[in-house]
């Protein structure tokens, strides 16, 4: 109540589509640019994703303080937790905002869900929906609110396309057809291919090209 709003990036997608790995690719790039993120990881049955990110992003790489990677159980209702009743997520966001004014953004990972997943606008300012080619090249044309309404659609695991008989050209055509002018991108979250383009969208559309807070403060001090 009354704290400064920190930009919030929502990441949703089906189980195993690469949400956690996307965050693991984005965070080092964000930190390299001077941005300070916190992460809330909604998980359907465990805090495994949060534990994995703590081990990798906090303990091993020292990119995010351990207490700023927060696992949240969602009572078996992943889409409810980010849309119909996002109160527990908002409570955690508010707690972070009240204690960590220095942060530049909060990444909120949804639990794995279906293609109708969307984030409440009260929870996320920018919404990335991620699918992967292993679900078949029919995925984009099936539509679903997640695919059609997100700010940025990502199609992950493009290296597997040839092995699962998915045609990337079909996926590209259908993504354009169902999303109109809204952007989409092919990525490989294992190798990092395409992630720099995702960063450009985040910095431009969510962070409005503003410098990181610690950089702007230093700039003010030096001026």
């Amino acid at each position: 109540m009354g704290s400064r709003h920190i930009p919030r990036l929502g990441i949703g997608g089906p189980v195993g589509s690469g949400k956690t790995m996307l965050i693991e690719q984005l965070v080092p790039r964000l930190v390299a640019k001077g941005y300070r993120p916190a992460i809330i990881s909604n998980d359907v049955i465990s805090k495994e994703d949060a534990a994995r990110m703590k081990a990798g992003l906090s303990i091993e790489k020292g990119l995010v303080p351990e207490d700023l990677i927060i696992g949240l159980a969602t009572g078996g209702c992943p889409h409810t937790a980010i849309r119909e009743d996002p109160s527990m997520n908002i409570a955690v966001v508010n707690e972070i905002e009240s204690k960590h004014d220095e942060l530049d953004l909060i990444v909120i990972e949804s639990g794995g869900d279906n293609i109708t997943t969307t984030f409440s606008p009260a929870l996320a300012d920018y919404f990335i929906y991620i699918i992967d080619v292993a679900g078949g090249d029919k995925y984009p044309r099936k539509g679903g609110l997640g695919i059609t309404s997100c700010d940025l659609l990502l199609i992950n695991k493009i290296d597997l396309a040839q092995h699962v008989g998915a045609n990337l050209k079909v996926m590209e055509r259908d993504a354009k057809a169902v999303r109109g002018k809204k952007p989409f991108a092919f990525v490989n979250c294992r190798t990092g291919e395409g992630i720099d383009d995702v960063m450009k969208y985040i910095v431009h559309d969510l962070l409005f090209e503003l410098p990181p807070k610690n950089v702007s403060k230093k700039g003010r001090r030096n001026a």
Partner: protein
Amino acid sequence: MSQRRESKFTRTKTKSQREESLLSIMQLSDSFFPAGMYTMSNGLETLFYQNKIKNAKQLQALVESCIRMQIGVADCVALGNTIDAANASNIESIIEIDQTLYAMKLVKEIREASVRSGVQLLNCIYAFAKNSLLNKYRRAVSTERATGIYPVSLGIASNITGISKHSAALILLYSFSVSFVGAALRLGMIDHKEGQKIIHALKPTIATASKNVTKPLQAMWQFFPALDIAQMMHERIENKMFVT
């Protein structure tokens, strides 16, 4: 005194006010109301994984015990006293009730979940109701003089929306029961018909427990160590669906 004031208030309500009050009861007790109740199992998840609660009969007995030994005698009492204090616009008394109930909840996960739920309830009410007492209580929460714990926040919301003490107690107990039984359903312990059967069977227990809403703050207590222990164990399990 405050009971007399409330009774008079109830008697003098117009038909339209009574209908609005009824709609407010429905709104606040609906699982669609965003207070995060669906994320809580109140320790049931631990007891289920430990094979200590396995069927509808055991579940019903557990919920009844929890209402009799914790929610009815602690949360309901806090709720009733909050509504009295709200009717008297006594913010200091409300803060005292808030702190007393918070101190009485022994398990960290349960305390935190109740606070998060209560604060979100306040924020939601604030979105459609302007009220000076609500503003004062929210300020007390933001300055950490109060916690925003759910029963106290519900008392403030009830005061604002013209819900009587007794109805507010029914909302609290019903929402708690639905949250508990809903968790059992999602754990696969019971099916949807068994869930409704339990909710129906809980009505006499809920009705009896709701009478605690008229008791003074000094009469508040809770004692259910077996469930406390299960709730504490829940804090330590790795693979879980629920925040409590």
